[in-house]
Each structure stands twice: as C-alpha cells, then as structure tokens.
C-alpha cells in the first residue's frame, strides 16, 4: 500500500484513541473533584489532568488558572490546543477523507457522523455538566464504534495492521503517562500509602483506563498502589496495560513482516520492549524507581513510532 495511506491510517487511529483517552481523563477528574476535599486532599486535580494529557505548559499560554471550566474547555473544545478532542476528531476526519479508499464504509461512517455531530450539536461546547457528560459519552462511543467497525469489517491486511499499530502505540503512551503523573503526585517518596484519601485517587486512575472492575477480578484485593502499577504495566490480560499493548504491537509488526517478507528495525525494537516487560517484576521496577521506569518506557515507545515511520511511512 501507499506509504502515505499507511501513515494516514496510523495517525487516524491515534487521533481517535487520544480523543477517547482525553474524554476518560476529564470524566475521571470530574468524579474526583466532585468528592469532598477531606476525601481527596488538596492537590489540584485539573492540573494533573493537564499533565496526563501532556499539555501542561501550553495550557498556561492561554489561561491563568487550571480550574474545571478552563481545563475542560482546553482539553475538549479549544482550537488553541492542537490535541483537543475536537481537533482530534477533525484531524481524524481529514485523515479519513485522504484514505477513504482504505477504510470500510462503516469506519468512514463512524468518523464522518461524529464529525457532523460535533459541528451540529457540540459546536459551542456543552452548556452544563449534564451536557458535558453526554459529550464525553459521545466521544467514547465514537471510539468504540470506530474500533468495533475496524475489527468487524476490515480485511486483515496491512491497512488493518497499520491502524492497529496506531491504536496500541497511542494507548501505551496514554497509560504510561497517567500512571506516571498519578504515581508522582501520590507517592512522592517513600510516603505511607493508604487511607481514604488515596483510595479515591487510585480509583480515578483505574477509571481513566476503564479498569476498576478488572482490578477486582484480577487481584481480589483492596486497592494497593503496587498492584495497580502491576496491572497497568505488566498484566498482559488488561487491554490497556503496557504489556498488552506491546504484545499487540509485536504481533501486528510481525504480521506486516510476514506479509512483506522481511523484518526490520521496528520489529526488533518492539520485541526488545516487549521482552523487557515480560521479564520485569514489580519489585525490580520499584527498586529502579517507577518514575524512571515509565519515563524510559515513554521514550522507547515514542522511538518505536519514529522507527515505524522511517521503515514504512515515508
């Protein structure tokens, strides 16, 4: 397939995934901030939402204060934020238009309908919290529909694999970021963990990766920071964990390698990261430092994006 088509599919999937992640982040933050201060402490949750979205510094070019109104606006509707939900959906639609021939009609319909709804219904942004909740649901449903229609209707060929690469690379980045920020905020040093205060904070991490129920099924335990880290980093059965993302990345890259009859740098690099995740234990990660571990992962992950681009997309 054309390199440009592969590139568009890859980014299209990333934009949709990112839009959903932002919607989840806002949703989780709203829940935490709705609790009395006694339960959640004095940290500014909206600041941390900005950090997990990776737009901390640019936000303050446009706003004074990180409060609900400003942050929700910046993350969801702002034109000034190139990675706002709105801009993600618009970029996804533009990409879809450029590669319509590579999309199934169901996928196109999902993106195009979302774009039409965005313009018709959400043009001015949600008027109140209820509307906002509706909007966030709409974004998540769009992503689910897109994923579902890709899964159910696409031929299993390179077009599908490149789009999956986008999903998993973006997802790995998102999970890593949220874990990093929250861990950093909640566990600055060797501080004592536990008590009602942290409980809700930890729940919010799980919520933002839709893993609250999963946690209980896997561990049958009350919330424990190291178990949450274990789930999100090493547990291959959780679709948003780093390990699961990398199982998928390695598999999709292998499929491409087989179809094209040759392997390259991206296959090697992805396998390297996957092996490291497979052979890691939470104890070692803690000893090494969770923050350091995740920072390294984020850098490796984004390097994989660069290598894929060089090998296939240009």
């Amino acid at each position, binding site marked *: 397939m054309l390199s440009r088509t592969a590139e568009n599919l890859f980014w299209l999937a990333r934009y949709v995934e990112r839009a959903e992640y932002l919607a989840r982040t806002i949703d989780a933050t709203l829940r935490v901030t709705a609790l009395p201060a006694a339960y959640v402490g004095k940290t500014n949750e909206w600041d941390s939402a900005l950090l997990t979205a990776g737009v901390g510094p640019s936000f303050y070019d446009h706003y004074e204060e990180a409060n609900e109104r400003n942050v929700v606006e910046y993350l969801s509707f702002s034109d000034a934020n190139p990675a706002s939900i709105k801009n993600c959906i618009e970029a996804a639609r533009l990409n879809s238009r450029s590669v319509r021939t590579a999309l199934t009609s169901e996928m196109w319909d999902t993106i195009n309908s979302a774009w039409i709804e965005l313009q018709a219904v959400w043009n001015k942004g949600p008027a109140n919290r209820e509307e906002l909740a509706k909007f966030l649901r709409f974004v998540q449903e769009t992503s689910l529909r897109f994923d579902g229609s890709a899964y159910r209707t696409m031929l299993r060929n390179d077009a599908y694999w*490149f789009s999956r690469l986008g999903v998993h690379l973006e997802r790995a980045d998102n999970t890593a970021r949220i874990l990093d920020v929250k861990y950093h905020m909640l566990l600055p040093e060797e501080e004592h963990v536990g008590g009602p205060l942290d409980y809700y904070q930890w729940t919010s991490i799980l919520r933002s990766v839709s893993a609250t129920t999963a946690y209980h099924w896997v561990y049958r335990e009350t919330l424990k920071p190291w178990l949450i880290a274990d789930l999100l980093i090493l547990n291959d059965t959780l679709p948003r964990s780093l390990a699961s993302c990398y199982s998928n990345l390695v598999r999709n890259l292998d499929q491409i390698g087989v179809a094209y009859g040759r392997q390259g740098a991206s296959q090697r690099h992805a396998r390297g990261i996957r092996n490291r995740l497979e052979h890691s234990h939470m104890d070692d990660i803690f000893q090494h430092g969770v923050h350091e571990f995740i920072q390294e992962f984020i850098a490796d992950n984004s390097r994989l994006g660069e290598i894929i681009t060089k090998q*296939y997309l240009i």
Partner: protein
Amino acid sequence: MAVAFDEMNGLGEDLRPAYQELSRWLKETPPDALEYRRQEAELLFRRIGITFAVYGDSEAQERLIPFDVIPRIMSATEWTLLEKGLKQRVLALNMFLKDIYHGRDILRANIIPEDLIFQNPVFRPEMNGQDVPHDIYVHIAGIDIIRTDPDNFIVLEDNARTPSGVSYMLENREIMMRLFPDLFARHRVAPVERYPDELLSALRSVAPHSASAEPTVALMTPGVYNSAYYEHSFLADKLGIELVEGRDLIVKNDEVFMRTTEGLKRVDVIYRRVDDDFLDPLTFRPDSALGVPGLMSAYAAGNITLANAVGTGIADDKAIYSYMPDIVKFYLSEEPILKNVQTWRCREPQDLSYVLDNLADLVVKEVHGSGGYGMLIGPAATKATIEAFRDKLKREPEGFIAQPTLALSTCPTCTDKGLAPRHVDLRPFVLTGSSHTTIVPGGLTRVALKEGSLVVNSSQGGGTKDTWILSE
C-alpha cells in the same frame, strides 16, 4: 422565449411513452411521501460524504449537490441514436488529436485555421510527434448533450480533459434504488454499475509496451482539497486502485514509481485528474506542488500512459468546438449524428458584428472558460452587464464565441411549489480502450433548479437527477 420541450410532456400535454409509468406513480404518491424521501436522500448523501468544494467559498467548504428524486427517462430508441452519435464524435476527437500532433492533414486541407491551434494555450508542443498507445488520447470523455425538440441531440460541449461527475451517476442510482424500489420494479432500467469495470479494463488496455502482463493503474488526484476529491476517492475505491498524489510518485530512469510500505512499485497507467499544467513542474508550471518532476520525460520515453493524454484540451476548446461538424466529416466521411449549437466565432469580423448587434439575445462564452463562469446570458443580463461585455468583446474578440439562447428541454422536478419543469442537460461518459468504445447507458443529468435558469453547473446552483435508459 417559447415554451421549452419537456422530456415528460413534450410540447403540450402529450405524455411521452417513456414517462407513462412514472406519471401514474406520481399520481399515486402523496406529495408528503415524496418530500420525505427527498430529505432521506439528502441525509444519505451527507452521511456518505458525497460533497464537493466550491473555491472561494469559505463558509460552505463542503457542499452537497442538490439531488432531485424525479428521474429523467429515455427510451431505448432515443439512447441507441445518442450512443451512435457519441461514439462517432469521440472517434473523431481522437483522430483529430492524433492528426494535430502528427501529420496535420486537417490544417493542410484548410479546414481549421492554423493560428487557432498553434496560438492556443492548450495546444501542447511537447506532444508533437509523440505516439500514445493505440492512438487513443481521450480515454474518458464527458459530452454535454442538450435537446430542444424530440428529434435532435445537440452537443453543448465536449469535455476531453478531466471530465467529472460520473460518481454522481453511480451514487444517484444507488440512492434511488434504495429509496424507490417500487418505482424500479415497475420499470426496466438499464444498469450503470459496470462503469468502474469498463473503466478499469479500458485503462489497462492502453498500458505501455514496457508494462508487465498485469499493468498497475493508479488514479492521481490533486488532493483532499480539490473540488472533485470525493469522486477521485470513490472511483479509486470502485476500481480497486491506489489513489495517489504527486508526492506519492517518483520518477527514476524514466519510469514512474509509487512509494509504498514495501518500497517503490512501478506504475504503468495513470488515470490523472490533475490538469496538464500541474503534471510536471519541470515541463509545465514550475510552481506546481501537485505534480511529479520528470513525469513528462517518462511519458516521452513511453513508460507511462496518461489518461487522458496530455494536450487533449485542444479538442474541447470552445473555439475548436464550432468546427466539430467539419472535423467529423473530414476524418470519417460521415454526416455528424449529433448536432452542434450554432456558434458565432467572434474572431471573425462578420460574426463579431452580428454578435455585437444581438448581445441581448445571445449567450457569450469565454473560449477557455468552464464551469459556467465568465459567460453572458443576454436575455437574463442587465443593460450594464451587457455593455461591460461589449467592451470586453471589442478588446479581445478572439477570446469569445456566441451562441443563441437555447430553450433547453425541461424535466419535472421537485420544487417548493410542487412538481415543476426545470431545464436539464445530460453528460454521458464515453470510454475508449484499445479494442472498443463503451458508454454505460445513461449519464449525469444536471438540472437548473432555479425557475427559468439555464445554468446547470453545480458551482452555480445546479442539481442532479438519476438518468434512466429503459430497456426494450
């Protein structure tokens, strides 16, 4: 102006046979139901994303072409005649182009003045002596046809460069079949869905000698911001070929390759929807970012087929148009089956003075204009506009032709006030491959939605209709 010939009702109330069943159906169908289906059709178009862009119109970057649900119908007899005429016309166009870029018999026979060719900006000296596979220049032609009476088909314009609109022909049919299965059941409408297959086989049949047995065809688009982008992606999809932009292509050793995830892959035939001027910045406009440096050199080496060929503009130029009946006779020694609209060439002093005296009754067109822009419709224009045009004509007479204001035939159309006659034309698409010429029965019917308007162009408020050719 006299009452126009109506495709359904003729010149009076005599219902024409092809419309009998439709007329009965219309009487049975409540107006509400029709309106409901119309809205449904619009929704479908928007969801599928069948839009076009209007340049310089920032507010409505993507617009829908209004779709009218009342079909335009032709009998098999009418179509047979039209088809014969179209094939004759396109054959003559191809022979004319070969002659102009090779022996130039037609110039030596003094049928067409030389300066009309050589001083014409759409004439491409690069094509002199260049052979194209099977001598086919115009692989895809869109011939605009109008009628003023039941007996004649008249060519309004030959489109021999990059005619568009065929996606509407195909999508209109899809949507009509979805919305009106009952109406289809009552007619025997010739299908149009094989157009993509015919197009692909025509394109493959003209692959260069150096191509493999399974030639690779690609469709080249200027990109997502082009007004016909939807059509480009639609066709690439239906043909199962790559939709490429200039930046996806690269020329090496006079061969054309596309950049793919598996490395470079050779391309043999390019169905290009990019104008000549933008194809190759080394040969044509150096500022073109849409083109492929070196493409023309690969073309000259015979390693790539461009469809349509470079330089076909000389055949559909409005100044050449008036010579088409002579062109048909010269190459085929046959009488033209399709008529031409009477045309005054303003470059000829006699014609010019007639035109200047009768501006208020005539349609004046720029020789190189298209899309309904830059033309004067005398009867509909204000005095001031006419005077402004008079000045332009005097300053540069060779830039214009004039034609009588024709009462284009009308067809019943949904309007705010119920069904009413609106003027229509028809663009059938003629495909020419190495072995034969094909025309999928039908074409794109365009309709001027404003009462009394004669301009059917989509950029000027025109709409489209499904076109039905009935089987015997």
